[in-house]
């Protein structure tokens, strides 16, 4: 797995690095058959990544720190969310559980009504039948690929250590104002357009599972440094129009209960394809370079 370098910074303020990293634009791979879904290559680049999870400082919840992340190698991610037809192939092969029935089951719609567990079962099947390695993106990869459509957690939450209720009231007002989508039914792939990196339907009405576990971390009193963290890998980060945290077995975002945010309209996913091999010469070089990069996610 790619291990981007990252530095913790206190705010979203841009921090210029000496490295020649460029903002990564995407390039689309040629359209392919069902076993080889269309993908987009996300080029190396630098971005400010608001960390998912819950963060406490001196016992009080605070906005999560933002990390400056440098993706030093490209990665390949599905252009579209996995479709109903794709997923049903996995169900027919006996490798995936039937998804919760949507009102409309259109083959070219993104699959919805799937849990994290369903998504990793699909990734396993997709890997086996193609001989390639397919997996869920990390929340960091997803955020980078989402580009200008990335939302994350809201940071403008009122925080008064002497009165915790101010935070709850502020969150409540924000959530009430957000409301739910007028038309929550999934729409045919591509309905929500593509972002500047070429990914389709980012931030549409299907939220996407990621491989990143929910975490609660305690920050140092005087720095954005994490002094302790507890990961709960029974809950994963879900990204979309806003960030949410869902238990792995939840298939319906509406009723599933999430940690933060208005419930997602629908739960789906897209996958990342790992580079072919680390044992070719180029792969070996990548591997050695990977070892030299601090592993942080």
């Amino acid at each position, binding site marked *: 797995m790619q291990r981007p370098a990252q530095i913790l910074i206190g705010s979203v303020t841009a921090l210029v690095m000496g490295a020649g990293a460029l903002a990564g634009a995407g390039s689309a791979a040629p359209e392919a058959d069902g076993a080889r879904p269309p993908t987009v290559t996300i080029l190396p680049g630098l971005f400010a990544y608001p960390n998912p999870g819950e963060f406490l400082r001196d016992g009080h919840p605070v906005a999560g720190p933002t990390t400056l992340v440098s993706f030093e190698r490209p990665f390949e991610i599905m252009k579209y969310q996995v479709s109903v037809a794709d997923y049903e192939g996995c169900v027919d092969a006996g490798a995936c559980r039937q998804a919760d029935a949507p009102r409309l089951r259109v083959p070219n719609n993104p699959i919805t009504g799937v849990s994290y567990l369903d998504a990793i079962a699909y990734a396993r099947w997709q890997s086996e039948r193609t001989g390639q390695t397919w997996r869920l993106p990390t929340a960091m990869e997803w955020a980078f690929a989402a580009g200008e459509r990335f939302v994350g957690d809201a940071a403008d939450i009122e925080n008064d250590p002497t009165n915790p*209720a101010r935070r709850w009231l502020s969150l409540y007002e924000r959530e009430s104002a957000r409301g739910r989508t007028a038309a929550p039914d999934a729409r045919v792939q591509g309905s929500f357009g593509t972002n500047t990196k070429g990914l389709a339907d980012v931030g549409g009405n299907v939220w996407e599972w990621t491989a990143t576990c929910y975490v609660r971390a305690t920050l140092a009193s005087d720095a954005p440094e994490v002094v302790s963290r507890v990961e709960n890998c*029974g*809950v994963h980060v879900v990204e979309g129009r806003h960030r949410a945290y869902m238990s792995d077995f939840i298939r319906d975002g509406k009723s599933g209960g999430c940690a933060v945010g208005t419930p997602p309209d629908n739960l789906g996913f897209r996958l990342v394809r790992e580079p072919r091999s680390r044992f070719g010469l180029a792969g070996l070089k990548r591997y050695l370079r990977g070892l030299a990069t601090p592993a942080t996610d």
Partner: protein
Amino acid sequence: MFTRREALMGVATAAILTTLPPFAVSAQADEAVINALPRVKVKLVAPPFVHAHDQVAVGGAKVVEFTMTIVEKPIILDDEGATLHAMTYDGSVPGPLMVVHQDDYVELTLINPDTNSLAHNIDFHASTGALGGGELTLINPGEQVTLRFKATRTGTFVYHCAPGGPMIPWHVVSGMSGAIMILPRDGLKDEKGAPLSYDKVFYIGENDFYIPRDESGAYKSFESAGDGYEDMLKVMRGLIPTHVVFNGAKGSLTGENAMKAKVGETVLIVHAQANRDTRPHLIGGHGDYVWEMGKFANPPAKDLETWFIRGGSAGAALYTFRQPGIYAYVNHNLIEAVELGATAHFKVEGDWNDDLMKQVDAPRAITTN
């Protein structure tokens, strides 16, 4: 899983949040004063028993420390082997009864070991603010948290897990509820203010369970709680429980585990139901003094045959046994008592009182002249 937003559960709570009780405004606790109070540590015991406590408080207000460890574990609900992936406070269904006095501070350390798979919290109906403490106690596997609240009101109160949205009923019908009893500092009193006391206290937690069945009608078993979630939610939405039981399983307070008392002994029965209405009845006995709603600031009702415990509350009934024998303590929806499991037994030793009851003429053929 859990969301503080979903935990708000809509408009009703919004109203509560915006209508702050007057005494809560800018009442900063004087930590120095609280820190100077005596502290006592209580070791909780599993129901139907209750930890040792004074009925009349000795001395002034205290900080009473409790520790509860959340245990996720499978439990068997009946003799058919129906299995629930239970979520428990301190390993028991229901969670243990905590007892303090009014004006004491309850200080609970809640531990969610990393062997568990789910996030949990605790909502004390007895406490004030933060969704009953739920907002301040949500912990992942591998975390612990300590909450302090002041026992401002007397009575028996439910506590339960409330981790947000549909996780709330699911955790509750998976066993995650219990009760706390906050006694008046000078003890219980009758309707005229005369003191009442008990020789024994029994604590009965009633649970409704919703176990999915397969096509043949047999109870389904699942590898984990999460695996069974979708199926259980479907049964829950039908609102018809497959089990209504006391103390976590059918028959758990009968036979060898029947509660024991003697003629002349006064027993306080605390009955908690976190989710669904129930109607306790002591077959062959009564409720001498009953706090149906469980709140001791109200005078007890007297001489009740059956009392009503609203879902989401705990009540208390005081009774002095006057005859020996076996008493059934049931939810007097008798279908629930007999078919679904809500029956407990008291074994009472002592001398029979002919004045109260006597079989004047034993059964025999009907006289026909």
